């Protein structure tokens, strides 16, 4: 059974998670200095979120349709995203077996993975506050 019951749940969690990341400069500053616009596309339930770091100072987070042209796009099942934020995804393996698809100049985006890892700790409490569900 998928972790997220519908797109609303997925959107609520992802938005809140990225707002939490944006508020923590120790995590957000390396992402901002990349100046990338990254879009994550999710399936089952469907949804997309765009993280715009292009001005280098503020992270703009948009859930759903968004006109911005992303530099890098990542495609995955929503359950893969859930597992990723739980710290349970072996990213190299998922890139080899195709469970994660990366479109665009992947170098810069993949290089940010170590920077993003501290956010894994924040994920359970984001899920608890938004969905009232313990992990």
């Amino acid at each position: 059974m998928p972790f997220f019951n519908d797109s609303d749940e997925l959107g609520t969690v992802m938005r809140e998670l990225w707002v939490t990341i944006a508020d923590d400069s120790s995590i957000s500053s390396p992402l901002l200095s990349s100046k990338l616009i990254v879009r994550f596309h999710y399936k089952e339930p469907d949804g997309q979120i765009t993280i715009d770091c292009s001005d280098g100072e503020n992270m703009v987070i948009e859930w759903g349709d968004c006109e911005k042209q992303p530099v890098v796009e990542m495609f995955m099942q929503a359950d893969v995203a859930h597992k990723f934020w739980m710290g349970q995804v072996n990213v190299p393996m998922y890139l080899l077996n195709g469970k994660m698809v990366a479109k665009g100049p992947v170098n810069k985006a993949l290089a940010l993975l170590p920077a993003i890892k501290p956010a894994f700790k924040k994920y359970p409490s984001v899920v608890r506050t938004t969905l009232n569900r313990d992990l």
Partner: protein
Amino acid sequence: MKLNSFIFNCPTRVMFAEQESASIASYAEDLGIIKPLLVSDRGLVENDVLRPVIESLTDSGIPYETFYDVPPDSDIDCVNKAAEFAREKECNSIIAVGGGSVLDTAKVVNLCLNQGSDLLANQGLNILHEKLSPFIALPTTAGTGSEVSFVAAIKDLSEKRKLVFGSRFLAPDLAILDPTLLLSLPGKLTAATGMDALTHAIESLACSVTQSPLTEIISIEAMRLLFEHLPRATRNGDDLDARAGTLVASTMAGIAFTNSGVGIIHALAHATGALFKTHHGLTNAIFLPHGMRFNKQESCQVFARAARSLGYADRQNDDTACDILIGKVEELMESISIPPRLRTIGVPAMEGELLEHWSELVLEDPSIMFNPRYATTEDVIDLYKRAY
């Protein structure tokens, strides 16, 4: 020992035989090749390396078009020109005869023929979902493993970066391994490309989260063939058995690394090559012993298994067996006259902003993600200093 989850693909049929390139037409019908684009480079054409392929196609009445303008380090312009030409001439398939640059170019041309010409929109990992046009690869070097790998890298001259394409659908349908195609390869290039293959084998062995018993056994056998045949092929280019050994080894190492990844040594070599245009295989070779030592704390067991399986170690503990293997790599390098230092291949003494920029390139190279040991900026700078 707990096994990793793994996935293993080898979508490419591999045919090995001396003179097999002269029978290429016999594979055409089976693969649906009606009118291929023959992709190669000028040097190979001048050395008459393509003759058996051309004769076979001509004798069988298979019409073909030619694109021989692939440069040593291929770029977007070259791919676009070749793809446009293939479209104009209504080619339905590709036959590529060459080293890594030719084979990578052919892969991306095939991508363009099927997905449209916007290369920037098609770069990335796993974005293809279906088979491309029929594609035969005939390697003329024993190094890159591109004839079986799922990746291709093409230079974007305007942005001074490489576009990376990765998908199992990029792999050729058939790789014809004909060691006679390697006979004109000079000793220096034989040595350097062979060390690229050895680096693929050793790094794929070390990729602790993605390697599998399948890639391990293939890597170790590739190493065995290279340790045995590379010195001979380098010393005497006409030694067909040695050519065959290195060629099969490089394909095996290609199968191994495309299924498990490469690591920090390739990341170091990619960054160094991007800034100073050093030869990929040579640069890998110089970083190889240093990278193995860096990874030793994570890879000691697997390196020791390889050393024992190759007959270099017996009852020594893992630590000693691992050191023996690294020593064997250094001996091999010496025996084929690979310079041990970066400074002798044109890499300058780096410091300040240049060193910082170089280390950023190393750390953002996708290969580093597969490395068993996490590397910091200080680590890669230390590796540079050791190799310099």
